[in-house]
């Protein structure tokens, strides 16, 4: 994280990739599939949110482990901000998915197994913030919430990667990868999709670094 905060080349990369994603994702030609039609373009805006969320939560999980090992409050601060941005990405993933489902499945929420697991993972991380709010001692808050963070991350894995594979779902890519089917991906889609994943993920970390700086300053001001 420290390296990411100091350097800036990857921010330019994120900007470039996202401009490319928006232009390419909306204008390039896409394969014409029944029912999906033009909504297939959501692939570049919906699926990368989940990639971003997973990466951010993983980073938050790693910082939580670091905090438990060293007791450094810096890791605790970073861990929280990463989880917040991860949660934000998850919410965006849910919203873009609902928007898409409204056009293809006929209603924004149809209780699909994948929608449900996504919603439950949001609940888990919301509970994480409730937990932080209910402990007043700083050291204690850091340790207890880091333990819950690790526990929550472990619950997230079966939720996102195992349970959806056991149930029937309408979601594209059913029966294999939980998000989409790699073999369905047309080379025209790949041309935008992979840069989109990288771009949105970098953008997520960028937001996180700004938030980390802000909360550092806030903490210094509180201490003074």
């Amino acid at each position, binding site marked *: 994280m420290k390296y990411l905060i100091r350097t800036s080349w990857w921010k330019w990369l994120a900007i470039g990739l996202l401009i490319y994603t928006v232009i390419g994702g909306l204008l390039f030609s896409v394969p014409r599939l029944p029912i999906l039609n033009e909504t297939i373009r959501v692939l570049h805006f919906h699926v990368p949110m989940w990639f971003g969320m997973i990466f951010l939560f993983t980073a938050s999980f790693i910082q939580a482990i670091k905090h438990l090992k060293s007791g450094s409050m810096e890791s605790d601060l970073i861990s929280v901000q990463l989880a917040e941005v991860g949660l934000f990405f998850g919410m965006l993933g849910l919203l873009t998915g609902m928007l898409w489902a409204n056009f293809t499945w006929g209603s924004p929420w149809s209780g699909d197994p994948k929608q449900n697991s996504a919603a439950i993972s949001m609940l888990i991380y919301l*509970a994480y913030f409730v*937990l932080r709010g*209910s402990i007043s001692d700083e050291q204690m808050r850091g340790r207890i919430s880091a333990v819950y963070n690790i526990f929550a991350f472990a619950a997230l894995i079966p939720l996102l990667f195992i349970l959806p594979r*056991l149930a029937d779902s309408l979601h594209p890519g059913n029966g294999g990868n939980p998000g989409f089917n790699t073999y369905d991906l047309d080379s025209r889609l790949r041309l935008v999709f992979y840069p989109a994943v990288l771009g949105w993920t970098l953008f997520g970390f960028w937001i996180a670094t700004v938030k980390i700086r802000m909360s550092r300053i806030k903490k210094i001001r509180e201490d003074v």
Partner: protein
Amino acid sequence: MFSQIFLLIRKDFVIDWRLKHPFTGILLYIASTIYTVYLSFDAVITPAVWSSLFWIILLFIATTALAKSFIQEERRHLYYYFTIKPNVLILSKLIYSFVYLSGIGLFGLLIYIILIGRPEFSLGLFLLNFFNGVLGLSVAFTMIASLAVHTAQKGNMMAILGFPVILPILLLAISNSRRIVEGAVWDQISSFSLILTSVNVIIVVLTLILFPYSWKS
């Protein structure tokens, strides 16, 4: 180490035996919940509803029953801190919670069957899945209880923190028992049982690793 674990487990049961009211209170709680269910779900219970309702009842009982596991230790906190290793304490708590919740659950199942009746299914398989699910419930809620004890609203925290985390286990247990109630045989559910067991193993290992950190304060 084993003698310490044994003594700690025995101590918890002795407390239950001497105090009586927490344990009998929980039994009364589960009995009256089942009675409420019996009266309000009269004649609409299909086999699938039967198994799901049972697990939901068990979920709520587990939240209340296992909340006490660390709250009752608060005054002994310092004493434990100097005399035993945290792993010994958590292992004894896990075993105790599992036995405690299994007992309450079996009592509940008995009343549930007496009042609501039971569809035709293999009881052996159902019990196997029952113990598998109860293991997950008891371990996860014991861990959550050890976190909730440090917060301001201990009682609410059990439900707020516990429900989302327990959902994967609960969903696996419910879908398994639903298959059993609808007449599945071992071959049809073995892979799902194995997944549930492996999720349980992960949670047990995590609890053993993480508990020492949440304990020292």
